[in-house]
């Protein structure tokens, strides 16, 4: 019944696309018009997605995918246009529409040429990302996946920094190398199961081991390159160093999350045996990412590169949580995704704001910003603390929940991850200190005084992110409630032994482990009778 409630998802998915088409048709001289149209469509999309919030049923007995819309697309190939939403995709879609609207609004002044193309591509990118989170057909998912990568390529190649051409190519080739392998895996699934329908395959996961292991690695390359996981991360700092601020923000906050989402939606629940078997390997890669990313970020000389390594480290937490294959780990992984999205998007936007005023992102050339830009400094510190996992802010909720999930498997892994937390905190706080308090090595007093504080418009873009960071830090209960049901289903599929064993125990564990100071609430949803026993 709920499954057929209208075409709300199609509307959300296609609104930015329509906006992009409108922008291309508009005459190219009216720069202000482009800006308004783009912002209008992004806002419209945000409004449409907000309606999902009170129509979504989070209870454990609600259907797995809601607001479904299912149309025939290429019947002779068995490809359908199927959209649907569960708790995980709900939070991802909300993150996309919120950050998309903010990113588009924040580029009010920084894009001076070919505005219509820029905004059209940003909207196209948003459609691609929404499509990734909403698709319930494997081929449709692939279509949006590539659409996203190609849109991102253009945004970097046209509006990037000095070395934009090279970095954009590097980005495209790296990410597409993974995706073409994934295409093969998708077609192999289609051949083995005679359907590309995600619901069908989730209901009956692939169980032939000889096929499953290949499929797992096929998906692994696509997702691990985008996340990025340890040996595949080299594209990211370079790309983040070159991309324009709003694009960096979207990349760090949403594209990387799309990779994690891929693991969460496809690799783990569709190939449960493989996920279980390769769990330790994936956890080790995640831990390397956490520690190595934090260490490298300490050595960076540029703000955006430093942030890139720091987000690489945080993405390690997301994959760590997911491949712990425990309910807490998975929930924590998703919350860490959101928190990383919020804090990293804000930090990259802030770096962009500094760049607009001082025309540099080199740390040694910045300094003493705190006295000149107090509001900027305040938001910056909140977001830095959120990123490094300070209690009361979003990062803590995510990292803490992940760690609790991981401890349940082995305490050693959690200990390794903690080293990463400390290093990441050191790196981000040191950055803050150098940028805000130290004095720039080669700038005069007048230059640093020339940095104007945030204007009202920039504040309007950033304040919502601050509020979200506090909300997730203080009252994450609604998030847990939404994530509870889908996460349980995944764990039941992939780690049945754990979910049976811990059916009674997990509740007590949660209640015990919830620390009073952060008021970490136990999951609000009444424990559904795990499966149909």
């Amino acid at each position, binding site marked *: 019944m709920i499954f057929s409630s209208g075409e709300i998802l199609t509307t959300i998915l296609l609104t930015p696309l329509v906006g992009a088409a409108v922008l291309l048709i508009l005459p190219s001289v009216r720069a202000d018009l482009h800006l308004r149209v783009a912002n209008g469509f992004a806002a419209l999309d945000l409004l449409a997605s907000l309606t999902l919030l009170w129509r979504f049923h989070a209870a454990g007995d609600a259907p797995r995918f809601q607001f479904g819309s299912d149309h025939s697309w290429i019947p002779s190939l068995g490809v359908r246009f199927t959209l649907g939403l569960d708790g995980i995709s709900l939070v991802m879609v909300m993150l996309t529409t919120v950050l998309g609207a903010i990113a588009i609004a924040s580029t009010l002044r920084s894009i001076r040429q070919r505005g219509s193309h820029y905004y059209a591509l940003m909207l196209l990118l948003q459609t691609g990302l929404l499509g990734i989170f909403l698709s319930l057909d494997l081929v449709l998912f692939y279509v949006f996946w590539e659409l996203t990568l*190609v849109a991102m390529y253009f945004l970097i*190649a046209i509006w990037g920094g000095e070395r934009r051409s090279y970095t954009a190519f590097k980005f495209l080739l790296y990410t597409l190398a993974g995706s073409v392998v994934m295409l093969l895996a998708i077609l192999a699934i289609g051949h083995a199961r005679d359907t590309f329908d995600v619901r069908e395959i989730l209901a009956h996961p692939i169980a032939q081991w000889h096929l499953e292991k290949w499929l797992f690695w096929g998906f692994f390359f696509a997702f691990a390159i985008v996340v990025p996981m340890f040996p595949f991360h080299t594209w990211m700092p370079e790309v983040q160093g070159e991309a324009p601020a709003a694009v960096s923000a979207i990349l760090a906050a949403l594209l990387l999350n799309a990779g994690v989402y891929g693991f969460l939606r496809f690799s783990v629940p569709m190939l449960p045996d493989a996920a279980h078997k390769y769990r330790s390997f994936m956890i080790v890669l995640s831990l390397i990412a956490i520690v190595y990313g934090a260490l490298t970020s300490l050595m960076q000389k540029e703000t955006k590169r430093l942030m890139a390594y720091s987000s690489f480290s945080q993405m390690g937490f997301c994959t760590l949580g997911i491949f712990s294959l425990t309910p807490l780990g998975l929930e924590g992984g998703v919350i860490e995704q959101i928190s990383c999205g919020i804090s990293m998007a804000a930090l990259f936007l802030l770096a962009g704001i500094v760049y607009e005023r001082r025309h540099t992102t080199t740390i040694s050339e910045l300094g003493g910003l705190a006295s000149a830009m107090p509001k900027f400094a305040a938001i910056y510190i909140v977001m830095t603390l959120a990123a490094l996992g300070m209690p009361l802010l979003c990062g803590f909720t995510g990292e803490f929940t992940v760690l609790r999930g991981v401890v349940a498997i082995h305490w050693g892994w959690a200990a390794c991850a903690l080293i990463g937390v400390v290093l990441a905190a050191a790196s981000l706080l040191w950055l803050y200190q150098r940028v805000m308090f130290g004095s720039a090595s080669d700038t005069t007093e007048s230059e640093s005084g020339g940095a104007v504080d945030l204007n009202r418009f920039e504040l309007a873009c950033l304040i919502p992110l601050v509020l979200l960071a506090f909300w997730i830090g203080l009252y994450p209960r609604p998030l847990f409630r939404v994530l509870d049901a889908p996460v349980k289903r995944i764990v039941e599929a992939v780690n049945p032994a754990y979910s049976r064993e811990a059916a009674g125990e997990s509740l007590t564990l949660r209640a015990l482990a919830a620390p009073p100071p952060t008021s970490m609430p136990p999951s609000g949803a009444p424990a559904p009778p795990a499966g149909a026993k």
Partner: protein
Amino acid sequence: MDQLVSWQAVFEQARRDFPSIVPEVMLAVFGLAILFTDGSLNARQKSWNALTAIFGVAFSATALWLMSGVQASTFDNSILVDPFFIFFGLVFLVLTAVVILLSVRTSETEGERQGLQFALMLFAATGMLFAACGNDLVLLFVALEIMATSFYVLSGFLRDDRRSNEGPLKFAVTGIFSSAILAYGFSILYGLAGSTNLAVIAQKIAERHSQWPADSLAYVAFATIAAGILFKIAAAPFHQWVPDALEGAPAGCAAFASIGSAAAGFAVLLRLLLGVFWPLAAAWVWAIAAVAVLSLTIGTFAAITQSNIKRLLAYSSIAQIGYVLLGLVATVNKDGTVSTRGLRAAGYYLLTYSVFATGAFGIVELLRRKGMAADELDDLHGLVRRSPVAAILMLVFLLSLAGVPLTAGFVAKLMVISALVETQHSPLAIVAVLYMLPAVYFYFRMIAAMWAREPGDAMNPAIAWTQELALGAMAATTLAAGIFPEQFVRFAQSSVLRPFLH
């Protein structure tokens, strides 16, 4: 007396069977008409030639359309009218029309003899149509030669351009050599069967194959014929003529010579492999697979290093042909039956590829200025500033060539790869997937040049309305076949499939 009766019978038969070749006759008649009237036209009336040619194609297409659904064999079984012929015929005619529209301005700016150019295009189309409906060795050979000879002349059409003299010479010399090999293969088939009719030959080969499975003569015939036809298709290792011939030709003619030749060659190859040589399928699958992989490899790696757009497109077209051939490989199931998925994939690939590849060549033609081809990669720089329309059209064509979703090229590659997976050619599927990556690199080099570079001092390209019409229609088709592929897939499936379900 006997003599007289048989002549009467011949006339009677010709009268009865004539309607089946009306499309070809139309093209030939209009081509001759252009040749005859061209001399009496003054300089301002020269564009009437193009109009006449378009009318010829339109009449021919109408005749072809009226035949759709017909299943007949005429002229003593030497001509087969079937959905396969209608499908390929329409592809050829659309291609011809588009090339004519693209070439109108070129011949004006270059001051070459337009009449001859358009007449040759129609003659080439005549040959291509006969190649698609021919069921007789002699007819097939003559048809392919009519086409090839027209292409030799067309590719050397710009007599003042040095490159336009060297390339076509290579093309003609190697082309004639390959035709000789083809003729040799045909003669072996005739020797085996005692007939030039494909149906008879197919029967004989099947009989011989069931008696002596290791019948070396049939394999020799296959090898020589395949070499001759693969030359027309421009598959590696028979591809050397492509870049040179295409570089010197005006881009419209270049597109026609490479894509038209490939499509016609493919029609013949399909008929022969799935008809005459079907008993040998277990063997030819490997040969075709090897040629496909070689084409992919050579085409891809040669395209990476090119700095001339036409040469780049030429080498990349070799790689694209590799994908069509992979589709052909996927027509053979493991158990030796015909796979509908493979045939349909090859058909769809060829149909859409001939649209978007021609489009890409057409855009290169737009950059041409008086006496200068402007076909280096640098000439694309900042095209989006100089001519947004051309840049957006080219973007569509290149994305499709690279196989990016929502374009026809993606669906085509998807179909080929999934057909390979279905028929359990996993290593080939992996190869097909991996070669998509370097293709992205060299097509995106062009896209980056157009969209992310500052324009130099190059002039703004001027687009004639005929070119705008042709290119716009091709871009729309490319997108339509990518976003709503179902109708196109069905069209390819219903037409290409039917004759070959054994």
